[in-house]
């Protein structure tokens, strides 16, 4: 039955004990299967938003017999309201690089690549310096591994892993058909592990402290901690490391301004939770608290009663209309229809019942869009329209 989980702060990611060389060296001595099993038993799930089990991903890639493989760090942090990866790469880049090296060791890769968001160009010089230091150390311990940075060009869709590969291959950033999945055929059609920056930072924690320590944090199905990018109507915006599984009510109690009307969990592609649902909503991957459980890439946007939810949705849809890659019909045309549609309802040129037609449309987008972008537009749309219908109309 339901247990109440309180908001618990943690400090793993940014705690810097300058011991990465020791941890890396120690881990690279260990048996590969043992490492994979440790990662699997930690139940770490991808922190980019999709929540795929990290251990399984590494295992699948390690099983491929193909000679050339890649480990890619996805630093194309583009979800509106997310700014944690930047901080990790600034403050504890060695953790990320070490985890990439460990992954390379396990799956048998010699090349790591950081796909850095175009807008993060200012991070590049420092990161390059860090990489050369890191490579120097790898060389010293006779570990053959190189890391390079690939600069994105500002398209949101390139955070989608297969669009990211296309972009790296010099093509248009358009998601591929799946299967094949990256662990079979990713970058240059070679087996590829692609992990979010934060995921890699967590694997460092796991290899440092052991899986149990990580597993003991959080709740069932949602183990460990997570970085949250807190923004919006809050007296204390910023980045916070919290244990997964907390209730949204606890979160709002801590970060709200006393007048929180709704929270957008997971950025523009996430869900909007209205005040009446705070208590029953848990932040985690699966498993019920008393109501729903929401996975997230870590973006938490708080809105107080001064905000028009129509404007919020309008803003998200404008974002999606522009950031859809444009190749598949449901996403390209769907986003345009949703945006023009809510405006038409607001202006009265379409009846309120048109919102229901649009909700049906988001269902089709969810079922038929080629990638996560088009599929998840339904999330914010339906949660905002269903909970704040009157704000859409009047």
């Amino acid at each position, binding site marked *: 039955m339901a247990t109440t989980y309180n908001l618990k702060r943690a400090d793993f990611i940014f705690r810097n004990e300058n011991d990465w060389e020791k941890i890396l060296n120690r881990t690279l001595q260990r048996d590969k299967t043992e490492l994979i099993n440790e990662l699997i038993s930690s139940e770490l799930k991808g922190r980019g938003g999709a929540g795929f089990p990290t251990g399984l991903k590494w295992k699948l890639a390690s099983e491929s017999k193909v000679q050339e493989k890649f480990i890619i760090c996805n630093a194309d942090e583009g979800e509106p309201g997310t700014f944690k990866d930047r901080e990790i790469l600034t403050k504890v880049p060695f953790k990320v690089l070490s985890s990439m090296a460990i992954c390379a060791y396990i799956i048998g890769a010699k090349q790591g690549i950081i796909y850095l968001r175009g807008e993060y160009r200012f991070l590049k010089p420092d990161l390059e310096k860090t990489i050369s230091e890191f490579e120097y150390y790898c060389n010293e311990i006779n570990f053959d591994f190189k890391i390079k940075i690939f600069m994105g060009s500002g398209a949101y869709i390139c955070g989608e892993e297969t669009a990211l590969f296309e972009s790296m291959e010099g093509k248009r950033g358009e998601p591929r058909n799946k299967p094949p999945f990256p662990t079979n055929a990713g970058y240059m059609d070679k087996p590829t592990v692609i992990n979010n920056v934060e995921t890699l930072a967590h694997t460092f924690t796991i290899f440092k402290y052991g899986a149990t320590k990580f597993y003991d944090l959080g709740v069932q199905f949602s183990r460990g901690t997570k970085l949250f990018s807190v923004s919006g109507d809050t007296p204390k915006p910023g980045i916070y490391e919290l244990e997964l599984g907390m209730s949204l009510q606890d979160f709002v109690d801590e970060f709200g301004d006393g007048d929180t009307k709704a929270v957008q969990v997971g950025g523009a592609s996430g869900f909007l939770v209205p005040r009446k649902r705070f208590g029953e909503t848990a932040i985690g991957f699966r498993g019920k608290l008393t109501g729903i459980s929401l996975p997230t890439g870590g973006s938490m946007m708080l809105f107080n009663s001064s905000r028009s939810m129509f404007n919020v949705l309008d803003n998200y849809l404008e974002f999606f209309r522009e950031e859809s*890659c444009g190749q598949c*019909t449901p996403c390209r045309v769907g986003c345009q229809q949703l945006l023009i549609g809510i405006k038409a309802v607001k202006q009265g040129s379409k009846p309120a019942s048109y919102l229901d037609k649009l909700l049906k449309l988001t269902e089709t987008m969810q079922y*038929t869009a080629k990638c996560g972008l088009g599929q998840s537009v339904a999330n914010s749309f339906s949660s905002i329209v269903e909970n704040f219908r009157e704000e859409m109309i009047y």
Partner: protein
Amino acid sequence: MSKKINITINGVVYEVEPGLTILEAAQNAGINIPTLCYHKDLCVAGNCRVCVVEIAGQKRLAASCATPCQENMEVLTNTLKVRNSRKHIIELLLSEHNADCTKCYKNGNCELQELAAEYKIMSQDLIDLVPYKDYTIDMFSPSIIKDDSRCIRCQRCVRTCAELQGVNALTVAYKGDKMKISTFFENSMNDVVCTTCGQCVNHCPTGALIEKNYIEDAWEAISDPEKHVIVQTAPAVRVGLGEEMGFEPGESVTGKMVAALKNLGFDSVLDTDFTADLTIMEEGTELLTRLKKALVDKDINIKLPMATSCSPGWIKYIEHMYPEYLGNLSTCKSPQQMFGALAKTYYAKARKLDPDKIVSVSVMPCTAKKFEANRPEMHDSGYRDVDIVLTTRELAIMIKQAGIDFRKLPEKKFDRLMGDSSGAAVIFGATGGVMEAALRTAYEIVTGREVPFDNLDILPVRGLEGVREASIKIEKPLENWAFLDGVELKCAVAHGLVNAKKVMDAVKEKKADYHFIEIMACPGGCLGGGGQPIPTNPEIREKRTKAIYEEDKNLSIRKSHENPEVIKIYKDFLGEPLGKKSHELLHTKYVARNRY
């Protein structure tokens, strides 16, 4: 052989080859799944999403064209969810599409229109997005019109231009709602590397890419009593036209086509095959002359391999992509242009007509021929040599407009004077045909004997592989050609410009020492041309190919130099191949073009 897998479609278990997609498995089982971005000639894109199906256990639908069959997969192709989604997707496409069908050239032959009819999209709930768009129509190319308002962004044209032609004139630009199919710097199709081959037109499911049609110009000329309107028909038209008239692919309709053209009111119905034979005389002689200069005179200015010059798409391609090899092109005009130049000189003289009053029309399987006729070089008769170029499709439209019952037409013969042809000319329509025709004649000129192949069928140059190589050893040549004794004449044949690139790169990197190469811009040669009936696919092209070789087999004269009209024109008018008159009328030069 790898193990077959079991897949259930709509409750029935099928055993399928591994690697097959759900769409292919369904098609094999006779289950229709609608498609738009899918095309048999092209790689899978999976972007229109109209082919979605339900897979048991999955909440999301799968694009059947892009999803491989898996063991024990349960597929449902006709559930409420599937139908609603497909309908929704068609509605979405229509909302972004200028669906003013009655004013569209492709009205009646549009895949989106067909789907809208099939799914009975009776009302439009969604908001019409067209007024919000800044759509443009590019009419600057003499061959192709690109109307963005009719585009559904399936990217079939982009894949065609890249995969079949290796040209990449069309590509995707921008993203999101602004995503569109565009060109380098959004220039007009006329100002980029577009070869005007028209394969994009052939592969476009809607009216976004169409040929520039000259139907009204043709009607106007025919109706003008002052004008003497002659028409020439290319070899590939006769094996394609039937498809537009309700015949199965692969049925040759030469006699009916001639009858129809006479019915339409053309004053004289003639055959491009005649000048195809003439091309062989000129080009074959040119090849032998080049070989002589290169091998005997050791003239270093002679360029080998010599490349054919019949395909205007290929000509524009080499002008853009390999301008340093223009000297390798045969200087012969294409059969269409030879015909045009002779129509207003030789034909006019023989018929005692004022060339100014002659309107020279051609029916071609090709959109690039429109561009070719428009070239400034093509005025050697003192007039524009070919006035109006129609595609096979345009001719079909005219026949339908004229109310002709094509099926019931009696078969008729081409008019005389430039209406006779050999089998060698007919096979110009298929990839390898020019090569075969040239070898039949050149070998005989050199040795005095027929080519050493059964029934004159030079099988090694036939077929639909992208690049084919062949060689013929010359033995016991006639005295004049003694220098060729023992020489192995090396040839290559390529069709589809992506294959032309392979051959040209091999030549460039000196990996191949060909003497003679035949290149046709379109897959399958002219029979798969950009002006041929839509749809096109490998099976259809194979059937047309068969029909072409069948025509050749049934003709009594199968060698160009035996065409009596060809013999006559050299005697009465031209003198000899590569002679002065030939140079004036039948040969041309090329211009180097930029890549951008």
